[in-house]
């Protein structure tokens, strides 16, 4: 049912304007063409996975054309719609029997194949939505840049752009997950890693991947993520999420890439496809790094602290420690009150809300900083805290309290000792 709705939606998107004026002959011809295609696929199927894919396609075709049943019942001859579908299914059963397909294995693989179909539709849906969002981003960015040259860009327009970017980022993240789930579902049908597949199975997987546009989707995902990174309207906090997204994508690719390479190497023409994804992914990682470190530098500047330029974790740590050392040594010879004010500003506006709770954990999680580097930074901040704090009023209060208590005890002892003497007198 859901499949049917997706097909209907895609159909409406593709042929929306022409829907009111359509040739019924064309509908019938398209249906008959699909039936012929399925029949050919059945006759040439050689594996249980191919049979499962055909079975899923039969279901999808039936869902897609169910709204046209009245027309097809009249137009198809000698069978009607239901009989036509039944005949294709019967033909597939005969083929399965010829191939010796075990029913339970077929059922399990068909279930996976249905999941592949569903995921493909979801990926297509999100791809179409993303294309629209990207068009919106382009339009808004252009409007803002035009306004920027004339007057101050309208804040509402900037907010709209940020909303669209946020939605695009969420969609990209969701689609990334779906794409890898789709590729994984195809491999799982074969129940063994890429390198253990026979040549026939590899060709089967490759055909399925191609039909589902899997590698194209992966390449498109990287390209659109790169597009997102180019936007000037992104803020520092966005980059933390983007870095996590890139890391997750890379991790998924590391798992599936070798399997895909194994399959794609079977065909000369497509041998370089996986290498191309690798290079695109490297470009994405480099661009993410560049934007993440730039955003972190901007954050320091925004809060009134200037670090020496940095482009990786090591440089950032060195730069950060250098700034801390200068503050600890009080290179500018500032008075205690000024130093205290600066540290409080750093601590409450940058260190605690932004770095310690936001950036640092993300940078460690995405491998851009090591836990050791973060520890070093924390130690330096504590050192700066101690240097500016001196002896705090709490310490004075504590000392006063201890002195008071001691004085009271001594006084009590003195009174207690002098009492018997008085009695003796």
């Amino acid at each position, binding site marked *: 049912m859901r499949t049917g709705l997706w097909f209907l939606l895609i159909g409406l998107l593709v042929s929306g304007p022409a829907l009111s004026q359509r*040739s*019924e*002959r064309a509908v019938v011809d398209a249906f008959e063409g699909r039936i012929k295609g399925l029949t050919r696929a059945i006759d040439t199927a050689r594996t249980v996975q191919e049979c499962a894919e055909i079975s899923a396609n039969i279901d999808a075709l039936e869902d897609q054309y169910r709204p046209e049943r009245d*027309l097809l019942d*009249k137009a198809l*001859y000698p069978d009607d719609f239901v009989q036509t579908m039944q005949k294709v299914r019967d033909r597939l059963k005969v083929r399965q029997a010829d191939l010796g397909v075990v029913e339970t294995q077929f059922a399990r693989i068909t279930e996976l194949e249905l999941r592949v179909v569903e995921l493909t539709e979801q990926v297509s849906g999100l791809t179409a939505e993303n294309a629209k969002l990207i068009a919106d981003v382009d339009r808004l960015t252009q409007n803002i840049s035009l306004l920027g040259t004339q007057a101050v860009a309208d804040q509402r327009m900037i907010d709209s752009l940020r909303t669209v970017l946020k939605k695009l980022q969420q969609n990209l993240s969701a689609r990334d997950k779906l794409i890898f789930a789709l590729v994984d579902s195809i491999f799982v049908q074969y129940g063994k890693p890429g390198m253990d597949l026979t040549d026939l199975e590899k060709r089967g997987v490759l055909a399925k991947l191609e039909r589902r546009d899997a590698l194209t989707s992966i390449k498109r995902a990287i390209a659109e993520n790169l597009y997102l990174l180019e936007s000037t309207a992104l803020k520092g906090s966005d980059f933390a999420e983007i870095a996590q997204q890139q890391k997750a994508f890379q991790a998924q690719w590391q798992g599936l890439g070798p399997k895909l390479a194994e399959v794609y190497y079977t065909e000369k023409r497509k041998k370089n496809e996986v290498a191309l994804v690798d290079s695109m992914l490297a470009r994405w990682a480099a661009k993410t790094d560049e934007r993440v470190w730039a955003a972190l530098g901007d954050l320091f500047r925004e809060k009134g602290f200037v670090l020496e330029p940095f482009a990786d974790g090591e440089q950032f740590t060195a730069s950060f420690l250098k700034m801390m050392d200068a503050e600890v040594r009080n290179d500018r010879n500032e008075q205690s009150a000024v130093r205290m004010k600066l540290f409080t500003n750093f601590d409450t506006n940058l260190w605690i809300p932004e770095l310690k709770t936001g950036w640092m954990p993300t940078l460690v999680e995405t491998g851009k900083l090591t836990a050791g580097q973060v520890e070093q930074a924390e130690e330096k901040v504590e050192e700066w805290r101690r240097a500016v704090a001196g002896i705090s009023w709490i310490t004075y209060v504590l000392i006063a309290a201890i002195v008071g208590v001691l004085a009271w005890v001594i006084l009590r002892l003195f009174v207690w000792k002098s009492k018997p003497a008085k009695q003796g007198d």
Partner: protein
Amino acid sequence: MRTAFVVLLVFLLGLFGCSSLTLRPADFAWPVEQVVKVDSKGMANVMRYSFTMNVKPLLFEETGDSTNVARWSIRVLRDQRGFYFLTADGFKHVYVFKQADAELAIEERILIAEQGISGSALNQRAPYVELVRDGGPAVKLSPDGIVEGGSK
């Protein structure tokens, strides 16, 4: 008396024999149009309905050329009443024919577009026939002409 009875009987039998027998209603509508290639002799064979016709005169009427006929594909649809609607991409008209003795006789020429119709297709919309085309609204047709949506 007997002679009169025999005469009456013969008269009545003759009367019944002369009266027409009508089967009503009859629905001749095809569910979808048939698109048929014209062969080099100008014959169009509608295989689904085992029905062949010579469309050379139609092509001559529409294009003024009856020699170069093999490039045409004719769209044919029969309506509920049994009239045949014929047109093709590039035609200006939809032609309506009725069946006669081993022939199709013209009933109506319906002008659709002076510059010719493109992307044409006929749909069954009983009791009418619908013509869809590129760059114009759908037109509802009856054997008498345009019923709805036409712009001549």
